[in-house]
Each structure stands twice: as structure tokens, then as C-alpha cells.
């Protein structure tokens, strides 16, 4: 479904991603682990087209999308929930959700949009409650749910999630991850997930890549990764457990 080959990205003279090669299969949840500054967010941004790459290729459903602008990639079925959510705070919750469907919204699809909206409200009752309120007054966790729900309104084939647990109370994090898992089953979409919370992302993902200073240094299925001593030491150490009480 998604294949990256030899992706190189620079910020000025800084080499951020170095020949990154990875793939996501249909219906798969893939997690990318890595420390701060490893290039995880940059990786997602270059897949959606917010960051220009220097070399390499991105294939999405067999089609090369290297030179497509962001809005065309969204139309093809890629959807990114950015770090910091990117909620339109002066608009209502419902307007935020409707804009999520912008890429396929037109007069012929009005009924379909309405139906999907109700479905989303069914999944996330907290949004239904606040549908006519300004998105800016939602709590951090509710805004994160809104951001994910809005991305779903685009009917994505591949959902890119950048730090969905950031700035959220730990008990909510678990809830959001359960949602992600449920959504994968409901819509048979693939998920590419970037997350600091290594333990949780290993738990819900099928496969995992580890990114270190712009290079992929490990690739494998999540279960074996959990038992890998290297990964245990670097990402699942006791100190990390103490930081994230889950």
C-alpha cells in the first residue's frame, strides 16, 4: 500500500532522513519508534508532502506520489493527524469534522457526508455532545479525539498519526489507542504511527521500525521487538516505565 524507497530529507544543510526505506501493508498498523529529533515527524510530513524530499521515491497504492501537492495526496487517501492536532479553534466541532471531508465533499455526496458524520458521532459521543461549540474550548484530550475523528472524515486508506498521546492524560491515551484499533477493524485502513510511548505502540502495532538519527536501525514484528533486548534497553527501560505510568 505504501512503499518508501531511499528517502533523503534535508533541512538546510542538516541531513534529517537518511535513505529511509519502509513499507506499510494493507490493513496493517505500523509503529515508528525513536527518540526526540530522530526524524519521526519529518518522515510523516514528507509522506503527506509538507516537507520536500531531496531524493528517493514514495509509492502509494502503486502510484508514485513524489511530486504531488498535499491536497492531491489527501484526495488519494492519505490523512495526517499532525503533532499539535491542527484543530481549527474558531470553528465549531461540527465544522471541523465537515472540513475533514473537504477532499470528497460536493453536492452529490452530501448525504454520504451526513451519514459518515453521524457514524463518527456514534463512535465518539463526546464530540456529538459538543458539536455546536467552538473547537477551541475543548480540552486537550477532546481536541485530540476531534483531530483523529476529523482525519477519519476524509475516509483515508492510510492514516498517519503523529504523537497521538502527546499532552494527554495517561488514562485517555489508552482510550485513544483502543479507538485506533477499533477503527482499523471498522474501516480496514492502514495506520502509520509515530509515538514516544514505546510500550503502548508496540502493544497495538503489528510491525515496528526504529528510527535513530534519521536511519532505520531495526525492523520487525512488534511481538518479537518487545522481547528484543536492545529495544527493551533503549525504549522499554525501567526509567521509561516510571515516566509513563501505564
Amino acid at each position, binding site marked *: 500500500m505504501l512503499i518508501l524507497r531511499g528517502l533523503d530529507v534535508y533541512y538546510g544543510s542538516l541531513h534529517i532522513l537518511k535513505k529511509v526505506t519502509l513499507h506499510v501493508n494493507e490493513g496493517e498498523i505500523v509503529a515508528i519508534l525513536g527518540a526526540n529529533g530522530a526524524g519521526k515527524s519529518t518522515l510523516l510530513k514528507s509522506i503527506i508532502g509538507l516537507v520536500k524530499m531531496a531524493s528517493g521515491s514514495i509509492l502509494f497504492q502503486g502510484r508514485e506520489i513524489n511530486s504531488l*501537492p498535499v491536497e492531491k495526496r489527501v484526495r488519494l487517501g492519505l490523512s495526517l493527524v499532525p503533532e499539535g492536532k*491542527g484543530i481549527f479553534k474558531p*470553528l465549531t466541532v461540527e465544522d471541523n469534522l465537515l472540513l475533514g471531508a473537504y477532499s470528497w465533499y460536493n453536492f452529490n455526496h452530501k448525504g454520504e457526508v451526513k451519514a459518515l458524520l453521524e457514524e463518527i458521532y456514534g463512535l465518539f459521543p463526546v464530540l456529538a455532545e459538543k458539536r455546536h461549540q467552538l473547537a477551541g474550548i475543548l480540552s486537550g484530550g477532546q481536541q485530540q479525539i476531534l483531530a483523529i475523528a476529523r482525519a477519519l472524515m476524509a475516509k483515508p486508506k492510510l492514516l498517519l498519526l503523529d504523537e497521538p498521546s502527546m499532552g494527554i492524560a495517561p488514562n485517555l491515551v489508552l482510550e485513544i489507542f483502543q479507538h485506533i484499533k477499533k477503527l482499523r477493524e471498522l474501516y480496514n485502513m492502514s495506520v502509520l504511527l509515530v509515538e514516544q510511548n514505546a510500550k503502548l505502540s508496540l502493544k497495538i502495532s503489528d510491525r515496528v521500525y526504529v528510527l535513530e538519527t534519521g536511519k532505520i536501525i531495526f525492523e520487525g514484528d512488534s511481538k518479537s521487538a518487545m522481547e528484543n533486548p536492545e529495544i527493551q534497553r533503549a525504549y522499554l527501560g525501567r526509567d521509561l516505565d516510571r515516566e509513563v505510568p501505564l
Partner: protein
Amino acid sequence: MEIFLQFFLSGVTVGAIYALIALGFNIVYNTTSILNLAQGEFVVLGGLFMWLFFQKMELPYYISFFLTLLTAGIFAFLMERLTIKPLLKTGDPLLLILITIAFSILLKGLLMFIFGKDPYGYPPLLEGMPILLGGAVIQKQVLVILAFILLTMIFLYFFFNKTILGKAMKACAFDQVAAQLMGINISRMVMLSFVLSGIFAALAGILITPITFMEYDRGAILTIKAFTASILGGLGSIWGAIAGGFILGIAENLVAGYIHSGLKDAISLVLLLIMLLLKPAGLFQKEEEVRLKKL
């Protein structure tokens, strides 16, 4: 009392015009967070081209009307594609605002080149004797202007709050990156906002020329007045722009009538300064609301 009523009604007339131009300001601001300071020149363009089609070429009123709006739309389209689009990526609002000033000078020169320096006018849509209202006179054209403002308001309210395109334009103003992630083509939204605001400015020009005449260099002062009206009501607010326009128009005429006519233009700048110092969010917008818009 009669004289007060007269000043007041003259104020309503001018205020209606300021309101219409200020609406155009807000369309661009709501989409891009920048100001199109060539707005006044588009008003002039509207008045002068209407004269060209209606008086000189003797086309029927309605055809001239639509041809003028079309011309303004094309000019605004070219303006955005040639000057704003190439620089939009810099994301520097100050640079973009300066570009609109440069374009306004260019447009003014072009209009002088085509039409010369004479003032032009043509008969209003509603002819006949002015209406007497409690001893004060009000021109029939003013009623036409008020009707158009009402239509414009309804259109803009519907557009920005009920259509996905209008909501997408608002989303662009708040966060361009997030708007892109929704699949919104930013450049197209910016273009659309410039075209819409150019058309509304030209509409204002068409409506006021029968009352005040129009000449090539009226743009700058109209831009300042409309800007003051927008600030008074709160930049970005449709209702604020309308209210601000009327407040400014009435204040101007009361000051000119009771104190000195030389102060007519000064009052606008004084109000602008007071507002920016004391309540930059505008009379009708809450500070918190504005802060919500900015992050």
C-alpha cells in the same frame, strides 16, 4: 433638530459606502490574515468602468453592471495570480501587504492613463426627486445602497457559515498547514478571496459614483476609511464592518457639520488611533475571541 437629522442621514449615506468597502477587506482578511490595501482602487475601478460601459458605450444598466463586476473580478484575479501567489510561500504578511500597496499605485496609474484626471458620473439607478424625511433630504440612491448592503451581508453570512467553501476559507486564515491537510488548495482559496473582495469593492464604486462622482485618485482615502471602519467593528467580523462603517460615516458628518468641515477626514484617523490604542479587537469583538483566532 432638523439639521441634526440631515447630518445624520448624510452620515448614513457615506457610512453605507464605507461598510460595503470594509466588507471586502474582511473577506481577504478572513482567508489570508493579510489586508488588501488596493481595495480603494477597486472602488474607483468600479465607478470608472461603469461610466465607460453605461455612459460612453451606452450599454443597458444591467449589462454594464455585470461587465463592470466582471472587469473588477478579472483585475483582482490577475493581481492575485501575478503578485500574491508567487510570494504566498514566504508567509510574510508584511511583505504581502506592501505588495498590495504597490499594486494599488500601479492600478491608480493605469486608471489615470485610461480615464484621465476628470471626475465622472452617471445617473443613479433610482431617479427622481430626493425623499423628504422630517425636514431632511435623503437621495433615493441611498436606499439602493442600503439594499445592496443587506444583500451582501446575507450573502457573506451564508457563504462563510453555511457553505463548505466559506468554511474552508476561514480554516485557511486560521491555520494554513492544517487546511492543506484537509485537502484544501490554499492558493485557490486566496485567489477566490481576492476576486470576491475586488467584486464587492467595484460594487461599492458603481453605487456611489452617481452620488459623489469618481476620479482616478480617490482610492487611497477610501481604503483608509474602510480600514478604520473595519478596525472599529473588529477586523474579520462581518457585522462589525457594517456597524463600523455607519459609525464612521455618522461621526464624520456630525464633526464636519457641527465643528468644522476640514476635520472630516481627520476624525477617521483619530478614531483609528483611539481604537488601536484602547481596544484593538474592535467594539464588537471580545479579546478572547480574537485570541482564539490567532492560536
